[in-house]
């Protein structure tokens, strides 16, 4: 009887150990998945930098009526903004709904510009570009990056770097 009881206790102990090891293994797996995601996900700042360069080129292409190039840049911007939703955010934006911001931006800002490019209409392009720039700047403000301003006039450098738009105007 005593031998059976000892066996039972041993079996219970082994069971507890197995569960504990299973939990530790799951934790390790979760941590690995998270770090793998962080390694493979684009970094938010780098993705924004690429989008900024493309936005500048989009404006310059529109000014010289290079519509095909402009359409290409817009498509790349769309992909870049969509990637932002899954990007690794900087620490201060860890709680922000970046996916929602990106999704809203793509749905709101891009279609008007796409149709202006399709119609090869310079005036419509300028208007749509201005609207998109305003959406960009509103998002920058929303995430505490109001100091990164994009120009509303196509063809200008991105971001605006002239002293008049800096915080120190002395």
């Amino acid at each position: 009887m005593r031998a059976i009881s000892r066996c039972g206790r041993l079996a219970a102990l082994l069971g507890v150990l197995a569960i504990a090891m299973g939990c530790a293994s799951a934790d390790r797996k979760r941590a690995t998945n998270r770090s793998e995601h962080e390694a493979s996900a684009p970094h938010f700042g780098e993705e924004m930098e690429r989008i900024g360069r493309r936005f500048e080129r989009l404006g310059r292409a529109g000014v010289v009526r290079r519509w095909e190039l402009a359409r290409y840049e817009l498509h790349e911007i769309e992909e870049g903004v969509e990637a932002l939703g899954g990007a690794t955010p900087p620490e201060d934006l860890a709680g922000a709904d970046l996916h929602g911001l990106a999704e809203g931006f793509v749905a709101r800002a891009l279609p008007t510009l796409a149709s202006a490019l399709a119609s090869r209409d310079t005036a419509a392009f300028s208007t749509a570009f201005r609207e998109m720039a305003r959406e960009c700047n509103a998002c920058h403000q929303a995430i505490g990056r109001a100091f990164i301003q994009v120009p509303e006039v196509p063809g200008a450098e991105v971001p605006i770097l002239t002293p008049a738009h800096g915080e120190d105007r002395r």
Partner: protein
Amino acid sequence: MPQPLDREFLTAFWKAHVLHHAAAGPVYGLWLLEELGRHGYRLSPGTLYPLLARMERNGLLRAKAAAGVKGRRSYHITPAGSGVLATLRERIAELHHEVVTEAKEARRSSRRARRSG
């Protein structure tokens, strides 16, 4: 960028809309942008998302990972949000009565008085 009218008044309208829809079921940002657009409010995502974040910080909404679209968040009304919505409904009804119904009636009476005088 929010205009003075937006800052002073309309942000409260938008929040009431958000609570109203969140009370019916979980909502997400893009849907809210379209819904508010249907009511004539063309909000930028840069305006809506900070507003949702403030409502979440103030305990009126709770954000969760939405099913279906990876990375999307859905916003759920909290008990505190439901309480605020109930109060808002009463205040909106009272405000509507005074600012719209009574004002319309006063204008009608004034027109009648002018015609008869």
